[in-house]
C-alpha cells in the first residue's frame, strides 16, 4: 500500500509532503494503518471534502491511497473533516514526519 500525503496551512503554515510505503512499516503498524483506513471509510469519501466556511488557521489535506487494486484521492479541508477521520489524519501526519519528501 502506498499513501501520498500532503498537509498545508495551519497556524504554523508548515507544509508536509510524504510518500508512505507500507512495506517500510512494521507488521503491527501496517495492520493498524489498514484498520484506521477501513474505520474511517476513506474509500467511500467523495473527491473533495469541503465546507463553505473560511477555515482560518485550519489545515488542508490531499491524500492518495493505493491499496491492491483500489486507488482513491481525496482533498479535504479540516473545517469539513468529520471526527471519524481525525485519528487517520493524525496518524498520517506523524508518518509523514518519518517519510518526508524533500
Amino acid at each position: 500500500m502506498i499513501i501520498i500525503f500532503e498537509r498545508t496551512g495551519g497556524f504554523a503554515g508548515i507544509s508536509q509532503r510524504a510518500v508512505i510505503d507500507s512495506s517500510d512499516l512494521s507488521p503491527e503498524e501496517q495492520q493498524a494503518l489498514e484498520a484506521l483506513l477501513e474505520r474511517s471509510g476513506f474509500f467511500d469519501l467523495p473527491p473533495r471534502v469541503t465546507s463553505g466556511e473560511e477555515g482560518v488557521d485550519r489545515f488542508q489535506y490531499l491524500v492518495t491511497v493505493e491499496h491492491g487494486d483500489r486507488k482513491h484521492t481525496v482533498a479535504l479541508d479540516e473545517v469539513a473533516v468529520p471526527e471519524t477521520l481525525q485519528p487517520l489524519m493524525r496518524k498520517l501526519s506523524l508518518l509523514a514526519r518519518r517519510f518526508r519528501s524533500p
Partner: protein
Amino acid sequence: MSRHPISCILPPYMLDQIAQNGTPEQRQKAELTATLTAQFRASRLEMAARPSAVPRAPGVAMRQRSVYTANFGSSLPGQLVRAEGAPPSGDAAVDEAYDGSGATYDLYWDVYQRNSIDGSGMRLDSTVHYQQGYDNAFWNGQQMVYGDGDEDLPPAQRLFNRFTISIDVIGHELTHGVTQHTGNLVYSNQPGALNESFSDVFGTLVKQRTLGQTVDQADWLIGAGLFTANVQGVALRSMKEPGTAYNDPVLGKDPQPGHMSDYVNTTSDNGGVHINSGIPNRAFYLTAKEIGGFAWEKAGRIWYVTLRDRIRSTTNFQQAADLTYAVAGELFGANSLEQMAVKNGWAGVGITVGSSSDGDTPQGCLQSVLKAFGIR
C-alpha cells in the same frame, strides 16, 4: 492615485489667500471649502475617537472570559473549566488561555479603546485540549481553539508543545476575530496574507506589552516556545527576518519571503496566506523600528486605525501600504516622522506608497480639493 478630498488638510492660510486674491467665484468657493474642511476635521476627530462602528455596550467595558476543555475530543466549546474571575485552575493550557486572552483584551481596550473583539464587549471563549496530538490553534468565527501539540508522544519524538504556551498565538487568534468584525479581509492570496499579518502584528504587540519591551528589546518572533528542543528553530515566524525562524530536517525550512521580489505564488495554504504574510510583517517591523519606543503606541495605532476604518475585504499589499501611509499622516501629520517611517517600512519590502495605478496621475491635497470644487 488622486487624493480624496476627505484625506486632505487644506491649511486655512491657503484659503485666506484664495479669498483675498481670487476671482469672486473663487472667493465663494474658498469660503465653502473652509466650511467643508472644518466639517472634515470634525468628522475625522469623531472617527478617530470611536472604538467601533457599533454603539458601545452599556456599562463599564470589562473582560468576559470563559475557558473550556474539549477533553481531547472535537466537540466545541466543551466543558467549562474557568469562568471570568475564577482562580487559576492548575491546568497550564486553561490558565494560559485565560491570561493570554485577558492580556489581548487589555491591549485593545487600554491602548485602542476597543471593547473586545467586536467593540461591544463580546465574550472571549477559548477551548483547550482539542483532539489528541493536535498541533494547531485556530479561530472558528466565534471562539479560540487550541491543541496540545505533540503531548501525546514520548518526549524524544515531540516537535510541538501545547499551543497556548506562546502568548502571541493567543493574541493572533483573537485578532482574527477583530479582523472579522472590522476589515474582514478575505482569507486568500494577498488579502488573506494581510489578514494573517494583522494577527501576527497584534499578537506580537500583546507579547511585547506584557513583557514591557521596546522595539529594540523585542525578538519579533511568532510562536517562540512552541517548538521543543528537538527542533532546529527558534519560532514559527520572524517578523524581523522572514525566512530565518527555522530550518529543520523534519519540518523543513521557514518559507516566508521578506520582500515582494520573493512573493510566493502558490495555491497551497489558500494562496500562501501564512507564507506571504512575511512581507507586511516585515513592513510593520521596519516601521516600528524606525519610530522607536513601544511598538503598540504609534506603529500599532496606525495599523489598528487602518484595520478598523480603512481596510476592505479585498485590500491588497499596495493598498494597505497606501492606507497605512494616509492614516499615519492623519494621526501624526503630513511628512511626520511616523508617516515617513511607514513609507520607509513598505519601501523596505519593495512597495512604494502612492504608486498604485488607478488611472489618475498622482495628485496632492491642494490640487485634489481645488479640483473637487471646480477651481482648477
